[in-house]
């Protein structure tokens, strides 16, 4: 009996052992089968995914913390071609919701590019539209799940990513520039500081196995920039520019407001402007890149505003003093060419204040002749004429100052350059040069960056000085002369309650056939208050038709901008300031 039980046990043990060994052998076989190798390869290939983390582009603020350029979320709408169930339904839904042609979408899905598994149907879709589409998909999926079949919108996917956004629209568009969908900055701050704003992308290999979670490296966002721009002053400046262009029938114009003590650009208006949220309109608005920001990119013959520099050079070199006189005969022959005053008249005996007040070309030509070419061009060189200012905006042009030795320089240029013809400058160049007069002889480099924010720290940009082309004494003397000349002239640039120094400019425009006397560039450069300048303003109106003269067009425009600047910078009138200074 015991023997029989023993046999049964042995048989049962043998069977179980056989089953066990069979299972083990099967496991070993499967582990080493070609299919297993394929699965292992697939697992290895899907074990890690390489993800690229793009930092959000740094924001741009004005000096008071108002957002000028930020980022908003947009969506990429795509379809997983390996997982799609109903291409018709997807094409129709996406087409209707996003305003695209369903037939085109369907055709794209039916004929995808080789190797593409995820087909992008639309990109940069607004969050509102994407949310609507996501809601439709969620409802469709829910209904399909309840009915027990796959959703017709299976395969439709969304990926959020940031897009540059400019909440102020066209405001300061000439300063900011814009960012294309490829993420590259063009013009202005966006181009100049593109690398800082964009930050550095980081590639990370991330295991898909959640038990192997790795630390995602912190991807620092691009550097945030704070500009010297005052948003409200910028808006006011642009409004005044637009009104002046209309009022005086000018084709284009630019106005720059700068702090002469630091070189901080407080506002920079240029025409035309565009809503930089729709940067693709650039080519229909601008004909070439130099039109984008005329203040820095478009050199022109400035005319009499350059007389500030000529007089500064003459005073500083000791060629003349304010009381020096000369006899204005109305014509001066230099280098085979005859120089005339703007009104073709003779002004008789004039001192240097009268010279500035009446903007006499012959006076300036006489001064440059007396100084000599080497001395005159030496000063112009130290004022930075013909050189880049180094302003931190993309696309600055250097202008042109011909000097003796250049193939196209003639002796008459010494005379014409002294009153702003035959020399091309940008408004920002003249602002920088004249800042030496407003700033005790020290010339400041104009700049637009107030501070940078990175890793929670603020790095302020300090003022940079570009030398002292003239002495402080010369600067004070010339400022007083310019203020007096404006007051004597009862200029339209005067601002009640504030003493202003400045100079008008009216320059004929050179053409292929010589200068066109009917078309001019009207300019004005000025600063105030004279005893403690807190702002400098440059106005350039291109081809005004209401009047060709800067005194009739640019000077009143200057006064309007100066009044707004005074209000917004909270600068008390001279008499109040003097009371505070002398308690």
């Amino acid at each position, binding site marked *: 009996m015991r023997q029989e039980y023993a046999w049964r046990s042995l048989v049962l043990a043998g069977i179980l052992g056989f089953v066990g060994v069979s299972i083990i052998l099967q496991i070993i076989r499967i582990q080493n089968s070609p299919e297993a190798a394929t699965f292992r390869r697939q697992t290895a290939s899907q074990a890690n995914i390489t993800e690229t983390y793009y930092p959000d582009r740094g924001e741009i603020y004005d000096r008071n913390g108002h957002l000028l350029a930020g980022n908003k979320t947009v969506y990429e709408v795509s379809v997983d071609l390996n997982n799609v169930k109903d291409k018709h339904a997807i094409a129709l839904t996406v087409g209707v919701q996003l305003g695209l042609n369903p037939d085109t979408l369907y055709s794209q899905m039916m004929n995808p590019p080789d190797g593409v598994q995820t087909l992008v149907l639309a990109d940069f879709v607004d969050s509102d539209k994407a949310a609507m589409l996501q809601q439709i998909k969620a409802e469709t999926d829910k209904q399909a799940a309840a009915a027990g079949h796959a959703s017709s919108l299976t395969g439709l996917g969304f990926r959020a990513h940031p897009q540059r956004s400019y909440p102020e629209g066209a405001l300061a568009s000439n300063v900011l520039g814009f960012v294309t969908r490829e993420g590259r900055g063009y013009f202005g701050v966006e181009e100049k500081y593109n690398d800082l704003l964009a930050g550095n992308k980081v590639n990370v290999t991330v295991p898909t196995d959640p038990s192997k979670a790795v*630390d995602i490296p912190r991807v620092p966002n691009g550097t945030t920039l704070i500009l010297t721009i005052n948003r409200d002053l910028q808006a006011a400046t642009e409004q005044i520019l637009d009104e002046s262009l209309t009022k005086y029938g000018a084709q284009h114009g630019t106005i720059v407001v700068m702090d002469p003590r630091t070189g901080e650009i407080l506002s920079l208006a240029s025409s035309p402007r565009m809503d930089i949220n729709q940067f693709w309109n650039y080519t229909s608005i601008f004909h070439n890149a130099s039109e984008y920001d005329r203040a820095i990119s478009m050199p022109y013959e400035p005319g009499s505003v350059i007389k500030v520099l000529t007089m500064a050079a003459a005073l500083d070199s000791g060629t003349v003093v304010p009381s020096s006189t000369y006899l204005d005969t109305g014509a001066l022959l230099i280098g085979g060419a005859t120089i005339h005053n703007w009104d073709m008249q003779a002004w008789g005996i004039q001192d240097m204040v009268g010279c500035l007040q009446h903007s006499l070309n012959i006076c300036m030509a006489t001064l440059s002749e007396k100084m000599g070419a080497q001395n005159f061009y030496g000063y112009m060189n130290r004022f930075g004429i013909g050189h880049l200012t180094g302003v931190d905006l993309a696309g600055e042009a250097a202008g042109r100052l011909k000097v003796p030795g250049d193939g196209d320089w003639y002796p008459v240029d010494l005379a014409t350059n002294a009153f702003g013809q035959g020399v091309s400058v940008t408004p920002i160049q003249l602002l920088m040069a004249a800042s030496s007069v407003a700033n005790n002889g020290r010339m400041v480099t104009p700049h637009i960056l107030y*501070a940078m924010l990175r890793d929670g720290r603020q790095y302020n940009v300090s003022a940079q000085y570009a030398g002292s082309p003239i002495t402080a004494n010369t600067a004070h003397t010339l400022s007083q002369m310019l203020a007096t000349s404006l007051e004597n002239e009862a200029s339209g640039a005067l601002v009640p309650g504030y003493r202003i120094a400045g100079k008008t400019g009216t320059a004929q425009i050179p053409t292929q056939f010589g200068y066109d006397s009917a078309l001019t560039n009207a300019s004005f450069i000025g600063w105030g208050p004279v005893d403690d300048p807190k702002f400098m303003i440059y106005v350039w109106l291109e081809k005004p038709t209401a009047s060709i003269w800067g005194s009739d067009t640019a000077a009143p425009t200057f006064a309007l901008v100066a009044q707004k600047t005074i209000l917004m910078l909270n600068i008390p009138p001279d008499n109040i300031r003097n009371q505070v200074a002398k308690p």
Partner: protein
Amino acid sequence: MQNVNYTVDNFIHAYKQAPWRIQMQWIGAFLLGIFGLALVAALYLDITSQAGIQGRNIQDMTAQLVVIQHTNADLQNKLAETTSTYNMEQRALALGYQPIEPSQVEYIIVPGYAAPKPAILAVAPALKPAAPSEPPEYTQSLIEWLDQQLRMPPAISMIGIAQ
């Protein structure tokens, strides 16, 4: 007396040599081994599953962080649009405000008044963790964890002793 001792010795010997007792010893050893293996397996599964759950949580939170950052950027953008120069001007005009003219401004000398300095725009520096943010529980293997536990010094009472 001698016979009694002999009988007891025989009984003890018989008990030690009893077949069922040897079987019980084998079964006990086997079950002990099984229990040990099951304990290790359970521990391993527990730690692995916890690591997996936490890893998934990290992935979810990372995704949430991105969404929150995007939402923040969107809100900031909307706020900037709402308070843009144009909108603020329109709202001010709708409320009956007018642009001020220079002649309307009255300046008053206030002794001792100092104009406010420009605000520091930067936010407070973000706190940086002193230690790696990824705890060892997410990276070490079971053997490493056991090794760490075995090497860990015994807990010491932190109660001070007064003299």
